[in-house]
């Protein structure tokens, strides 16, 4: 799987010792999280854990509450009730910037780069409160070799896929323990999505726990250690992707009511 985007040999050469990252320990723990958007119930009593070196994919249709869930964990939205704890500490009341220094980084939906700045400046802002760790600006250039030559270019000139890579780089340079990825595939061509997702295994191998949100179910399943399906803010399915049947996922994604109706029509 050679790629101009990712130099795989790098991750194997240095940076981390996979054995030192215990796969069973819980990093992020969410319990009965409920979030409202004004009057609207966006997330309804959702619970899950994110572990070291594992990927939890949250799938669900448009408006299922996926982005709200990630934004609440990152501290941009406020929870109505429930608890978010990180490495055993309740961080529910931390402001967003303190969650970053605690070890949670969000790659927001729509990338949200600093448009007036160069690529390198974007990464430097991402690194300005960084925890010590394997990722620094140079490491990001190793991860995405094309960036080095264009580090002085303004990011607004970049393509969608390039901007997405910068957004991921900007989150990684903070050396998070948990990386939240919100709809990284949105608006990108399939080939570009594939390249972006190529780096997820490398991120995970460094011991980072990944919580990602995807509308694209097959993409969400492919990289996941565990899957969680949201429907209208509620958890409708949770499990390891290999244990789930397509029918189960379909019902969890669209709701049993709708699936039953559509199968009636087709018969």
């Amino acid at each position, binding site marked *: 799987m050679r790629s101009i985007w990712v130099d795989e040999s790098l991750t194997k050469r240095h940076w981390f010792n996979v054995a030192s990252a215990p796969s069973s320990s819980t990093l992020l723990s969410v319990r009965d999280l409920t979030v409202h958007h004004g009057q609207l119930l966006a997330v309804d009593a959702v619970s899950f854990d994110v572990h070291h070196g594992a990927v939890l994919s949250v799938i669900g249709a448009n408006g299922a509450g996926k982005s709200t869930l990630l934004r609440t964990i990152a501290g*941009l939205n406020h929870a109505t009730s429930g608890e978010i704890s990180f490495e055993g500490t309740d961080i529910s009341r931390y*402001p*967003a910037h303190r969650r970053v220094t605690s070890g949670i980084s969000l790659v927001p939906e729509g990338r949200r780069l*600093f448009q*007036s700045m160069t690529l390198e400046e974007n990464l430097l*802002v991402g690194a*300005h409160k960084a925890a010590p760790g394997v990722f620094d600006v140079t490491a990001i250039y190793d991860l995405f070799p094309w960036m080095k030559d264009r580090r002085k270019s303004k990011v607004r000139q970049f393509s969608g896929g390039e901007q997405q890579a910068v957004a991921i780089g900007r989150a990684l340079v903070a050396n998070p323990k948990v990386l939240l990825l919100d709809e990284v595939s949105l608006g990108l061509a399939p080939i570009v999505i594939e390249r972006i997702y190529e780096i997820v295994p490398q991120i995970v191998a460094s011991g980072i726990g990944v919580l990602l949100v995807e509308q694209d179910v097959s993409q969400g399943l492919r990289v996941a250690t565990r899957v969680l399906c949201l429907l209208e803010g509620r958890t409708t399915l949770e499990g390891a992707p290999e244990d789930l049947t397509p029918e189960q996922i379909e019902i969890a994604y669209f709701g049993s009511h709708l699936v039953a109706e559509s199968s009636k029509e087709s018969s």
Partner: protein
Amino acid sequence: MTWVNILVQGVLIGGFYALFACGLSLMFGVMKVINLAHGDMAVVAGYVAVFLAPKWHVPEVWSFLIVVPLFGLLGYVLQRTLLQKSIDRDPFTTLLVTFGLSVIIENLLLAIYSANGQSVNIGSLVSKSFQLSSSTYVSYVALTVLAVAVVVLGALQLFLSRTNTGRVIRAVSDDREAAQLCGANYKHVFGIAAAISFATVALAGISYGVMTQFAPTSGGANLLFAFEAVVIGGIGSLWGTLVGGIALGIAQQYGAHVNPAYQILFGNLLFLVVLAVRPQGLFGRKEAMA
């Protein structure tokens, strides 16, 4: 040679406008706050230099060494308390709060120091000048103020582009939420921007007091010129503000040459023309208008 004189005097006063305006531009760029008390803060700095500095046994002209950091501190505290509280509500509240501050400051100054004109005493140096051509004299004071403006704008530009704190200020200005996701405490960043704004306007206020007379109500007129300099130059560009201030200064000098009563009118006309032809300003980006 009148043209040379118009240009030279316009450039000299334009430097002052830019010094006055850069803090206004910074606060608008970073927290989207239009500080209607900006001009009054400059006047307060002038009064502190004239009335309080002698009590501290500091020569009036050197008072900026104390007044500028003091105003920086005041800006930070005011931002973290009153202004942040109003920003948390909505933009209209912020506008009302700064307008209220402006009214309170003007009336307090009137009550304490009366409406008499004051100026910062620097002795006989105030009237010294050198002759550039037969009809053009350059005042040392105005030249010094221009130099101060260029140095301050240059230092601010370097600070914003080269330092970590400066980059974070620009990041918050670009996208506040994304900056938070990079670990920036935006309220603290707002405080730093307000500190810079207040410190520069204090320097502008003392400069104004050296150049000419000021009274409790001087803030409003200067605030208008500062607005015009920022809009002509383009929001978000410091060198644009300098060019905007200079363009405004030249237009005013030209107006004064046509008829002394037209000085301010010609400045306003230039402002209107720029708004109509190039609303993003001479150095502004189109997307910065959103």
